[in-house]
């Protein structure tokens, strides 16, 4: 079998999946420090030894960016951690982030051969282990740029899609400028995902690396308002533009009482806490208003982050209200598990009807209705149907809605020739080309709410497409000048 792994497959299968080291639930529900510490070297070694080193490594097919998982796990076994992280970096430039936030249980780990009879290899935790090793041992060196190119490319939005596209293009040698509307880079990684899942030092480090590669970062620049895409191309001299502005506009349920004090969108709540550091009020100036009884509506990662954040801010009762059942919850499994440990209540098959307030217009309760599951709907999940006469209310002083987002319309409405689809997403082909020549898009902006890794995949694909596009433009201008002079 393998030169590195002396164990027979049957022996490997006997090793139990290693759990990661974690901050104790009682303690962590009062702080914003990272919950999971990941693997130490010993656990990483044991876990890596579980890999069956399949001749047909299906895990790589399960990875949206096709990381050569078998090789990097083998390198871990050889204790070649630098080599392991290099292997990952060939396909994924943000391993410390993906190791922490990817839904591995739906991707690589879902298809892992070991997982058919036993538990799958903890690929995500292994990825994180080598990425952290690279950080603590200062092993990262910026990639060499072979050819410097004259063309300028504008990247709009500094989420994972924009960051990846910027890094890839600057590797190819282009002059890259990254425009970000907020005062800090990172997109959802900055304002949405909390510190306790993704420490900001990691994000800051990635931003520094991108700058070190020569990418110019301009924050406080809202494309569409400060300058339009057309202006960037016609007046600012950008030859191509990548749009990675995400899906940041929050949905509201549209039920009575959403104007009451104490009702937040998860975006506002998380932005106040994460981007503006409201949890450090009054050392930081941005306030947050949080009661003792908090209901969060939704079942995705955003809802989970909001409810766990509320708990950390001192909510005695933090309830997740979701209209489908546990199985349908789109949140990462690890987060659901952590939330339970932190004492989050799960109110499943429950649909909010209205939010009730007192004479000061402040939330006092949430009226709900029980649901039951019917036939599968468009999404393939069983459709929740109301149970007649099942109305009840829960006493709450804060309601946080985390029921989805859609792209911000500012760019679409100020750019000529951009085709948009359902819920305002920008339509692209499979090479991330939009309907407008020279303009590319990806991430949540074209997918309407997806994942970090898919945003990165799009950013990388777009970088390659932009390169092809700019080379073809260059060729055709050479043709024209030739024919004019000839």
């Amino acid at each position, binding site marked *: 079998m393998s030169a590195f792994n002396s164990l027979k497959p049957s022996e490997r299968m006997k090793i139990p999946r290693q759990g990661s080291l974690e901050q104790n639930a009682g303690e962590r529900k009062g702080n914003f420090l990272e919950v999971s510490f990941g693997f130490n070297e010993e656990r990483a070694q044991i876990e890596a030894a579980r890999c069956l080193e399949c001749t047909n490594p299906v895990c790589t097919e399960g990875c949206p960016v096709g990381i050569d998982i078998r090789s990097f796990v083998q390198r871990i076994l050889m204790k070649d951690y630098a080599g392991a992280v290099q292997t990952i970096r060939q396909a994924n430039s943000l391993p410390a982030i993906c190791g922490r936030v990817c839904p591995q249980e739906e991707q690589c780990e879902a298809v892992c051969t070991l997982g058919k009879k036993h538990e799958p290899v903890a690929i995500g935790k292994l990825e994180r282990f080598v990425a952290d090793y690279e950080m603590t041992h200062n092993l990262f060196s910026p990639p060499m740029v072979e050819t410097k190119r004259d063309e300028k490319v504008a990247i709009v939005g500094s989420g994972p899609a924009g960051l990846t596209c910027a890094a890839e293009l600057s590797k190819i040698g282009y002059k890259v400028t990254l425009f970000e509307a*907020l005062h800090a880079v990172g997109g959802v990684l900055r304002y949405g995902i909390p510190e306790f899942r993704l420490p900001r030092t990691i994000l800051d480090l990635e931003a520094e690396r991108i700058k070190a590669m020569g990418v110019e970062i301009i924050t406080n620049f809202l494309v569409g*308002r400060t*300058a339009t895409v057309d202006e960037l191309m016609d007046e600012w001299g950008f030859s191509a533009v990548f749009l990675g502005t995400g899906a*940041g506009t929050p949905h509201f349920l549209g039920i009575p009482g959403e*104007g009451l004090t104490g009702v937040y969108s998860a975006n506002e709540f998380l932005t106040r806490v994460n981007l503006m550091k409201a949890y450090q009020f*009054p050392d930081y100036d941005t*306030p947050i208003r949080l009661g003792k009884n908090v209901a969060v509506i939704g079942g995705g990662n955003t809802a989970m982050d909001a409810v766990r954040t509320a708990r950390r801010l001192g909510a005695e009762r933090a309830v997740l209200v979701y209209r489908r059942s546990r199985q349908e919850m789109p949140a990462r499994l690890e987060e659901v598990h952590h939330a339970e440990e932190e004492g989050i209540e799960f109110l499943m098959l429950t649909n909010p009807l209205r939010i009730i307030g007192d004479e000061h217009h402040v939330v006092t309760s949430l009226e709900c209705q029980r649901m039951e599951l019917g036939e599968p709907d468009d999404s393939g999940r069983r459709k929740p149907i109301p149970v007649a006469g099942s109305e009840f209310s829960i006493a709450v002083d804060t309601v946080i809605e985390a029921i989805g987002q859609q792209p911000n319309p*500012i760019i679409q409405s100020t750019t000529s020739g951009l085709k948009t689809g359902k819920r305002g997403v920008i339509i692209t082909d499979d090479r991330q080309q939009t309907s407008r020549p020279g303009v590319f898009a990806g991430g949540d902006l074209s997918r309407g709410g997806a994942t970090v890794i898919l945003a990165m995949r799009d950013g990388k694909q777009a970088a390659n497409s932009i390169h092809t596009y700019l080379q073809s433009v260059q060729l055709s201008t050479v043709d024209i000048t030739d024919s004019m002079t000839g």
Partner: protein
Amino acid sequence: MFRIIQKERLASTITKFVVHAPYIAPKRRPGNFAIIRVVESGERIPLTLVDSDPVAGTITLIVQAIGKTTQLLCSLQEGDSLRDVVGPLGTPTPIENHGSVACVGGGVGTAVIYPIARGLREAGNNVYSIIGGRTSELVILEQEMARVSNRVITTTDDGSLGRKGIVTDPLREMLDDRSLGISAVYAIGPLPMMKAVSNLTRNYGVPTFVSLNAIMVDGTGMCGGCRVTVDGTMKFACVDGPEFDGHKVDFDELIMRNRSYTELERLAHQRYLQTTLPEHA
């Protein structure tokens, strides 16, 4: 960083700043605002872009010190910098020639209405302005408003300047005076004032535009914190506004919502005063 080029005190609590912001300056339109952050630990607050100079690359802000952030801002000097300024934000005021318009500014709202009055004047309107404040000191930009108006009436609650009373009194007279032919009203100031103006003009059937000072965070449509109810539907003041049809705005809801953080704001303010006052004393 955005350098303060010029600072001028307009009243004891109201300060005008000219700030270097070269990307924003050429793009500003009447009705636009910016979101600023004074320091790294600061909050993001919206301020109207009162004016701009595209050649010099500067914008003008007029700030009333009412709480921690605005006081901190007003304590900055020429040569200091603001940490962040993003803009121009919001949907610009549609400037049309209505014939004759009334522009009503209350307190620092006069700073917000000034660029709009100027735009309306440049578009050929007769501009009749009413500017008010609690007391004479808080009536600002009288000369600037006079330059872009056919007539300016000032009011103060205490009668220390101009007419004693509130802005709706002279407005009612203007609307009653058919010879003026006022066919649109722009009113910007404290919410109760805008509500009173809207209630008044509704009886006259005169279209009325108000600028809603909802509490904002990002100012780009990303948080929904600035949501307001207009004509029964939810709008985001930072992108759909800040200007809306005053006859359709749910003012009471907004007045309540704007009190969301009163206690916390007071706390932040007290702490700020404790840390700064001893030095000044």
